[in-house]
């Protein structure tokens, strides 16, 4: 069916706009000619199937939207009723703070783990490896359930010599506070991913930088603080933004603890009373979408900012869609970043 088209393409004849009598072929070998090369005038290749598919998709979408708009189960009036409900907006606030606290905890622990994994001490190295292995190797949902019941395993904290009368006994009030339990659970899980991101960032800084800094008599701490970390941030910040977006959605899993004051928990709580689950799922989704959209805009600018300047290319290792799929597997070297400053003027 494309035959007539290809025929037409060949027909596109030269000389329509160019100087008469000069075909592109004839002009090819003549370098001394000052005239600009003749423009190609051709009928572009058609893609009929693309159009067919597009029309079908748009039609399908329109049918779905029109159908959904009048389907009673979606409960659109209820969506309108609950979208700005005080309980929902307060729960959205809880979700935001869960995200913020968990990420702060994850970044601090992740940095620590990354430094441990890069240390020369084999014990520190193995402990960090073990931690990452466990926390990345088990589902976050299962981990949250575990942290939810940890106060049953350890009802009190004691300080003293093992198997002797303890000196101090404190009731376990940390894991009986479900919000704190949720933050700890999420932070400990996320730390395993953050440590890999931080490690990849630290490893991306050329060895010569550390050497030059050492040769200038700077200590390890000074070298890290003034030379290595500022350069590693370029690699660390963009995927960390992705992790924040991912964390915002992962907070809905705190239902496993069970904590029910977050956005998803409260939506479910309301729908359990009103027997209208669908509109409240839509309400919760709209709030999540609002937050992730704002974060994605921020992420866009962060990535733009950190890919400019030195003319170096980003790793390209960040997952295309936000999600906990960061850079490296334990034991696998991080992507080397070229720090070739042997520049031309």
């Amino acid at each position: 069916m494309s035959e007539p088209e290809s025929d037409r393409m060949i027909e596109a004849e030269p000389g329509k706009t160019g100087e008469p009598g000069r075909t592109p072929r004839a002009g090819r070998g003549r370098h001394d000619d000052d005239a600009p090369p003749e423009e190609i005038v051709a009928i572009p290749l058609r893609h009929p199937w693309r159009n067919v598919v597009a029309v079908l998709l748009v039609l399908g979408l329109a049918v779905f939207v029109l159908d959904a708009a009048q389907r009673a189960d979606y409960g659109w009036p209820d969506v309108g009723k609950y979208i700005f409900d005080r309980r929902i907006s307060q729960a959205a606030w809880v979700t935001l703070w869960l995200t913020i606290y968990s990420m702060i905890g994850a970044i601090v622990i992740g940095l620590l783990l990354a430094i441990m994994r890069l240390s020369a001490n084999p014990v520190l190295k193995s402990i960090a490896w073990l931690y990452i292995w466990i926390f990345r190797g088990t589902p976050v949902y299962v981990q949250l359930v575990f942290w939810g019941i940890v106060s049953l395993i350890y009802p009190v904290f004691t300080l003293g010599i093992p198997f002797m009368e303890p000196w101090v006994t404190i009731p376990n009030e940390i894991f009986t506070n479900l919000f704190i339990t949720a933050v700890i659970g999420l932070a400990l899980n996320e730390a395993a991913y953050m440590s890999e991101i931080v490690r990849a960032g630290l490893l991306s800084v050329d060895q010569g930088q550390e050497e030059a800094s050492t040769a200038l008599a700077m200590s390890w701490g000074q070298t890290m603080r003034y030379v290595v970390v500022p350069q590693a941030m370029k690699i660390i910040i963009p995927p960390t933004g992705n992790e924040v977006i991912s964390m915002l959605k992962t907070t809905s899993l705190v239902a496993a603890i069970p904590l029910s004051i977050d956005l998803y928990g409260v939506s479910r709580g309301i729908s359990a009373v009103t027997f209208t689950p669908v509109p409240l799922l839509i309400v919760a989704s709209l709030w999540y979408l609002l937050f992730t959209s704002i974060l994605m805009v921020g992420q866009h600018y962060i990535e733009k900012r950190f890919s400019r300047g030195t003319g170096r290319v980003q790793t390209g290792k960040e997952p295309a869609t936000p999600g906990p799929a960061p850079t490296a597997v334990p034991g696998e070297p991080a992507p080397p970043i070229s720090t070739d400053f042997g520049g031309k003027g």
Partner: protein
Amino acid sequence: MTDAPMVLAERVSKNFGTNKVLRGISLEVDPGEVLCIVGPSGSGKSTFLRCINHLERVDGGRLSVDGQLVGYRQKGDKLYELKLKEAAFQRQEIGMVFQRFNLFPHLTAVENIILAPMRVKGISKAKATARAMELLERVGLGDKGDAYPAHLSGGQQQRVAIARALAMDPKLMLFDEPTSALDPELVGEVLDVMKELAKSGMTMIVVTHEMGFAREVADTLVFMDEGVVVEAGPPREILGNPQHDRTKAFLSKVL
């Protein structure tokens, strides 16, 4: 200036695993002397240089700078490895210039130069900056203080790197193939700065492939191969009348 050598190496050896990189290097560098080390790649020249400021640990023999053992402290007949802080303190007096410049890309030329004087020596920013501008002037880059390394040519970057090393007021400067990563037309500007530095009386050890520079500037030329010093002496003698077969073979390739 005393008669004691600035650098004294006595049968210095260094292994990487079972690979013997240095097999007993002995040499002396007097204050104000310029020593050039040449030799084929893999001969241990760079490793020896890195041992001098303890970027690599010496495994055998004795190596001292200005009368102080590098990387170790001797108490009685026992040697103790220096703490990191003590090793850093020793390095303050030794400047190093790298083949790949290793400027800090996130800092401007001036910031590169003032970082260590401020953080290590506690010099005020104003003072350090004034000194940095002086040094940039000296290497011919007085107008490039605010430029980031990425915006400088290789030759300019290496001159900033030299200024950065000089900012710590070292007694000894080490150059590890400082012109090997440069486009040929940029080599001259770096060598000129080094010549000026040599004239000013700086003690320098230069690992290089620039035979012309070695002939003109070096007081002593050392030819190293397979981890040993094959031949050492005034550059004109070594280059003009090499005694050893290995030296002859090497020079016939590079000259």
